[in-house]
């Protein structure tokens, strides 16, 4: 019997419990520290982008083309337009193929081919973007004999296919089977039940997925290096090399000129704003639809 009225065994038990509690508290705190460390880089990057890039942004930046080294001013108007064109071409390729493949994955779920395609699309999703770049170079640029916006759009579109296919499939799964059955019972053919009932019901989610895919490819540089190539001048022709915001940022970032570095920061700020805006619109689309669905 000790002075506190505990047996020796109870005392050790108490001590052990305290150390266990302490260890638990320490580990909980460490995971909290990890969370802080993980969010810090994001805040750092955003802060640097805004503080360095915002001062350079002006009307000139959005309307001008790049100036030669040594001259001040100049902008990335052509690169911004170029990125929009590239993304439009990419979406024109990636969306129909991706949604079509997603329809297949959802409707033929459980078949061996669907499982295989699903697995391979996940694998394709992890394909390094530079590999996509040189692949499209051999497939499009080399036969054509020159770089082009079309090649750049194909490279980005290729990257979109597996992303869109998988989100489409997931969204289609959320549609109750009874809807399709109702459509079939009313005499709809399979294809109309799929396209105008099931696909339409899932469209909000699919749009979100598509927008996220668009946001992801809009920031890609590596697949454009040897396809769209970049351009110092205004060009909107799909048959010509075209400027792109990420390409221009890359070229300026590794250049030796301070003025170009400042433009690179401004370009990065615009690119991030573009990407985040698309992502936020994507989130709002779904939220709005869901709210509507709940209300109705």
């Amino acid at each position, binding site marked *: 019997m000790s002075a506190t009225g505990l047996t020796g065994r109870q005392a050790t038990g108490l001590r052990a419990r305290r150390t266990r509690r302490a260890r638990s508290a320490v580990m909980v705190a460490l*995971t909290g520290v990890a969370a802080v460390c993980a969010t810090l880089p994001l805040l750092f990057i955003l802060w640097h982008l805004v503080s360095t890039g915002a001062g350079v942004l002006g009307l000139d930046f959005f309307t001008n083309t790049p100036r030669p080294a040594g001259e001040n001013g100049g902008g990335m108007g052509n690169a911004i337009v170029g990125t929009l064109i590239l993304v439009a071409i990419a979406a024109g390729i990636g969306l129909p193929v991706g949604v079509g493949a997603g329809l297949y994955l959802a409707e033929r779920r459980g078949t061996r081919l669907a499982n295989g395609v699903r697995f391979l699309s996940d694998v394709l999703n992890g394909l390094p973007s530079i590999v996509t770049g040189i692949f499209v170079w051999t497939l499009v640029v080399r036969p054509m004999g020159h770089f082009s916006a079309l090649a750049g759009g194909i490279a980005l579109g290729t990257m979109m296919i597996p992303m869109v296919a998988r989100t489409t499939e997931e969204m289609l799964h959320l549609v109750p089977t009874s809807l399709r059955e109702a459509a079939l019972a009313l005499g709809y053919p399979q294809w109309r039940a799929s396209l105008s009932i099931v696909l339409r019901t899932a469209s909000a989610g699919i749009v979100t997925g598509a927008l996220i895919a668009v946001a992801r490819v809009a920031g890609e540089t590596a697949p454009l290096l040897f396809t769209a190539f970049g351009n110092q001048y205004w060009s909107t022709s799909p048959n010509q090399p075209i400027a792109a915001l990420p390409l221009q940022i890359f070229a300026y970032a590794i250049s030796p000129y301070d003025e170009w570095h400042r433009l690179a920061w401004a370009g990065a700020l615009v690119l991030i704003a573009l990407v985040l805006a698309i992502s936020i619109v994507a989130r709002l689309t779904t939220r709005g639809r869901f709210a509507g669905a709940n209300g109705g």
Partner: protein
Amino acid sequence: MARLALESAAASSTIPVRSGGERESVNAALEERSLGDRIYRAAITLFALSIPLLLALVAWELLSAGWPTLRRFGVGFLTSSAWDPVAGDFGAAPAIYGTLASSAVALLLAVPLALGVSIFLSELAPRWLRQPVGFLVDLLAAIPSVVYGLWGIFVLLPLLRDPVIPFLRDTLGLGATPFFRGVAYGPSILAAGLILAIMVLPYIASVSREVLLAVPRTQREAALALGATKWEMVRGAVLPYAKSGIIGGVILGLGRALGETMAVTMLIGNRHDISASLLAPGYTMASLIANEFSEASSDAHLSALMAVGFVLFATTIVVNAIARLLVRRVARGGAVR
């Protein structure tokens, strides 16, 4: 016409008595319907097949373009560190080494952090904190690679040059190890590994978080009922259950790190050299292609770069396939239980 007839028949609840001509038109409608269905089925099958086809096409194009190099140097291509476009002598060893080393640094830093974040967000954090922090970590994945590179050049490299590397090397005494020898210019495998760590962190964290959330509640409740502390619950009941899924997430992150191009190209220094020191500049397979592809003048040089591309392709495909299999097994196991 035929569709109209079908729809009106479907819409009316009473079945009208049909003349022979009407019945024929219904039959025609049914036939048209099956034709439409066949076209639809064929179209989506074609779209679905485009994915494996694309993968096969990538493999074929890279292999055939890189074949002259692979045939000429054989396995030596992977182990030789020569890279002389003029003499036509190529070896990918420095690029392979740099790829592995920078990815290893990235995982070493990112895995504990990502695990910490995902455990914090799925088990320990107060409810109101989970979504905003999760959103911020996810946002890391939305930042384009080239922006990471830009930030790396102008913020990370100066930071590394001045307080960080001297601190690691001299104050902590890491200079005694071979990993921190030599002069630190800034662009280095360490810098590339650091930026890669930030870039792959959201991928590992989001997969781990999903896997952790898939662990059944009963698992946690049982541990707590036995008197486990929060951490003991995580270690003893949650992590073992989620283990293979988390490993899958880590391998997925590895796949990203191996193929990441722009940020690494901007920070690794781009030198054909194998050095044990992380402070030395190096090359990765992706950055080698990004840097030299547009300047490759001879067919041999181009073919060598294509061969590097094929090695990179094959590596990431294998890594990704393993990761997906691991993650899927967990997801499936969770669904069955």
